[in-house]
């Protein structure tokens, strides 16, 4: 049984109303959510402090311009905010942020999370080719019916962690047939309860006990889709040849690491002088191979990045969104990520106290690995 706050408006209006209430009542000093920037339909995360600025917000717009976990890390990197801020974000973004907090890249204090059961988002290129708006109504129809909307990013289609962890409030989006008339906000924490509590609230909002929707059906669909997508990539992961075929077209822009919420290093090891070849290095490689790709280390970069982040990869799909040459990064990283996480029964970002597997160990484990 979870406490639910019901606002008799559409989810979009209702959540705006709630955010307005939070700002107007000074319960928070800022709201961090997606906002339309212009008539062109550009959507970006914004930090809003005045409630009149909320009118253009689109908290559950099916797009992830950049992983909000990464942005929150930038926001709180140099210390917790001294004033409360409400953040509306997707489950994978929240998990990314939790993971970053564990890595000392941000602070949770004074941040209130509003998340939702997530139906997934569209690829970024739908923004510039202008097709995203056309897809919106079909998106919400599918979500209501607990279906996977077509044209979503592969990472989202294959996402089975669509229910947020560590959130203070959750909005039910998936399978919610009353999206257009009712906004139900599930209160999931003490902090959430504090925020929703107010004299005024009673007049405007009704309070009831409700069971969070069982989404096993939807999960099943996602699992099936994930299997399909993984099955598609698996035959391509045939060792060195397969990897060269997949990663051969990489132009080395490292955009994938730049947008990856987990890649938090100041200077990526693969961009450091340690990863450069000196002239003698080239010459010895040439002696052996007869030819060498320049700049080198394409596979080393991707495999190395995998070895660094797979354990914490939240499968948010940002990497693939920005890849200028359409390498199916999100699926490869998700597949590998889940396989290594599974070894330690670890779900990145699920728990704030659980240690990241590579920072700890058990004396009795993995004994089969040694021969």
């Amino acid at each position, binding site marked *: 049984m979870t406490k639910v706050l019901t606002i008799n408006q559409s989810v979009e209006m209702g959540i705006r109303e709630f955010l307005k209430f939070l700002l107007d009542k000074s319960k928070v000093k800022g709201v961090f959510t997606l906002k339309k920037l212009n008539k062109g339909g550009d959507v970006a995360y914004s930090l809003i402090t005045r409630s009149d600025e909320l009118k253009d917000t689109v908290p559950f717009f099916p797009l992830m311009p950049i992983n909000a976990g990464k942005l929150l890390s930038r926001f709180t990197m*140099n210390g917790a905010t001294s004033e409360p801020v409400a953040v509306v974000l997707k489950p994978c973004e929240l998990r990314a942020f939790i993971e970053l907090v564990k890595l*000392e*890249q941000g602070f949770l204090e004074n941040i209130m999370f509003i998340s939702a059961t997530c139906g997934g988002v569209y690829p970024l290129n739908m923004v510039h080719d202008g097709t995203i708006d056309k897809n919106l109504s079909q998106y919400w129809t599918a979500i209501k019916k607990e279906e996977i909307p077509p044209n979503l990013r592969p990472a989202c289609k294959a996402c089975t962690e669509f229910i947020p962890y560590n959130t203070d409030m959750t909005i039910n989006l998936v399978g919610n047939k009353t999206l257009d008339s009712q906004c139900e906000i599930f209160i999931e924490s003490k902090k959430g309860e504090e925020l929703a509590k107010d004299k005024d609230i009673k007049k405007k909002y009704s309070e009831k006990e409700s069971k969070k929707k069982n989404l096993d059906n939807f999960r099943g669909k996602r699992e099936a889709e994930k299997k399909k997508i993984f099955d598609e990539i698996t035959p391509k992961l045939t060792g060195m040849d397969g990897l060269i075929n997949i990663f051969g077209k990489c132009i080395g822009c490292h955009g994938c690491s730049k947008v990856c919420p987990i890649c938090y290093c*100041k*200077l990526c090891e693969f961009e450091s002088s340690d990863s450069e070849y000196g002239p003698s290095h080239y010459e010895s490689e040439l002696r052996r191979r007869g030819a060498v790709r320049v700049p080198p280390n394409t596979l080393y970069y991707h495999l190395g990045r995998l070895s660094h982040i797979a354990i914490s990869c939240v499968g948010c799909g940002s990497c693939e969104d920005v890849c200028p040459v359409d390498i199916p990064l999100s699926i490869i990283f998700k597949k590998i990520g889940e396989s290594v996480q599974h070894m330690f029964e670890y779900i990145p970002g699920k728990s704030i106290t659980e240690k990241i597997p590579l*920072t700890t160990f058990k004396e009795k484990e993995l004994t089969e690995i040694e021969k």
Partner: protein
Amino acid sequence: MDRKIGVYICECGPNIAEKIDIDKVIKAVSPLDDVSIATRYKLLCSEQGKKFLEEQIKKNGLTHLVVAACSPRDHQHTFMTICENAGINPFLFQLANIREQCAWITENKEEATNKAIRLTKAAIGRVRYHVPLEKKEIESNPDVLVIGGGIAGMEASLHLASPQRKIYLVEKTSQLGGVVTNLEKTFPDMQSCPKIIQDKIDQVTNNDNIKVYTNCEVTEILGFFGNFEGTVTQNNNEDKTTVGFNVGAVVLATGCALFDPTDDPNYGYGKFDNVITALEFEKMNLAGNIRLKNGKTPKSVAIIHCVGRDKKGYCSEICCMYSIKFVRYLQNKIPEIKISNFYTDLCLPEKSYQKFYEQSRGKKNDFIRIDSIKITNPGNKLTITHNDEQGNKKSHGVDMVILSPALEPSVDTKKLAEFTRISQDDEGFFAEEHEKLGPVTTSTEGVYIAGCAQGPKSIQNTLIQAEAVAGKILSSLIPGKKIEPEVKVAHISESFCIGCKTCLTVCSYGVITFDSTKKVCVANEVICRGCGNCVAACPSGAASLKHFTFNQLRQELKEAVL
């Protein structure tokens, strides 16, 4: 600077010369970049060999040296010394092991030669990236902070104090002496405890070089071996006064606590009169007044061993012996008394203990092996119900029950472990550095543990540990002598570190701290042991290990597989 690498291949008599085509190795490595000379010699570790190498370095103006010979475990030290004598930094040297791991493992000369070429090339590839490392010397403070004014803390202090070395002895309670002040006699030779402890207290208080702080607690310890800063807070009055001082080492001698039998309802402790703990009995005995609650002298007593052992999961080593000592107390003071000992296993682990036990047995003393026990109080008497060896239920009525509880970590353990960045073992005691070889040292260099704070032990063994701590400090923290830390240590680049603390979490020695203003991790090179765990853990490449840097190893492995 131009590198001039000299490559010297040791024949090691026939050991290498007959198994490896040395000339082929020379031919293969001579044309490599920076190699200015590659040659062979019959036995480089011999006196002539050493002289030869030294002369060669000087004559050829070598800047780097590679020797292909035996295992570094044998002669790395020898050749580094030669480098030093010849005027090049000993770290600009690399030894290729072409004997133990090459010549001696195959009968195939061609294969051995190929491998030797690889190993030598790898050493050359690596040595090119070596940088000179200099031994550092760190000023150190010989003074010592001893926490805990029990017998361990006092013993350590007395052994350490000298005009060149001040000792700050901090005791939480108002008086020195610790748990021993409650005891009448020691086991097994029944010496007088008040005398022993008073002697120590007198020696400590009369020693000008020991400053005692009673009613005081340590509230902060910063720094590292040779240069700690401790803060002590006085609990005397309302306004707490703090004292700070610099010391070179910290001794944790905080003793232990007794398991609280209230936790186990079987013993009736706290519920029934005349069920008392060992410590309560010691005090009663010391006061010369073994009486029941009603003032009468007990006619029968049960001593129950191993109280709390199940819960704690370890044998406390001394309970059997002090229980037997109680038998002696009782026999002395109330000769006609009937004593029953209930035990699970008799633990008498010292050369004289068994004799002590045997001599304490008597007609009126039973030693009964049990596997479970329950104390009830149906009438005036306490009733002990237990299963005997045959599995039969038996009952005894006694006037008094003495519980011999397990020893457990004292309450301050966790706090002090955090202060000193050492770990606690699974039982909650301070964890020693190494179960066998480092019983009184800890993972933080300069922090030592003595006595029951490290685990249950007798007075005798407690004193041994206190003296052991003294030995450790006296041999490594010498007044006027600087500390020479390891040189092959970790370093974290401030500009590349992102402060994720991954390195910090994997370090076993508390070397890495987090600078919260700069938000970067910092490795204390003075206490680093140079394992390199943090380096492999760092995703940014900000951490590096001197002499085992990314580049050095990369070059080595690249040449090895080329």
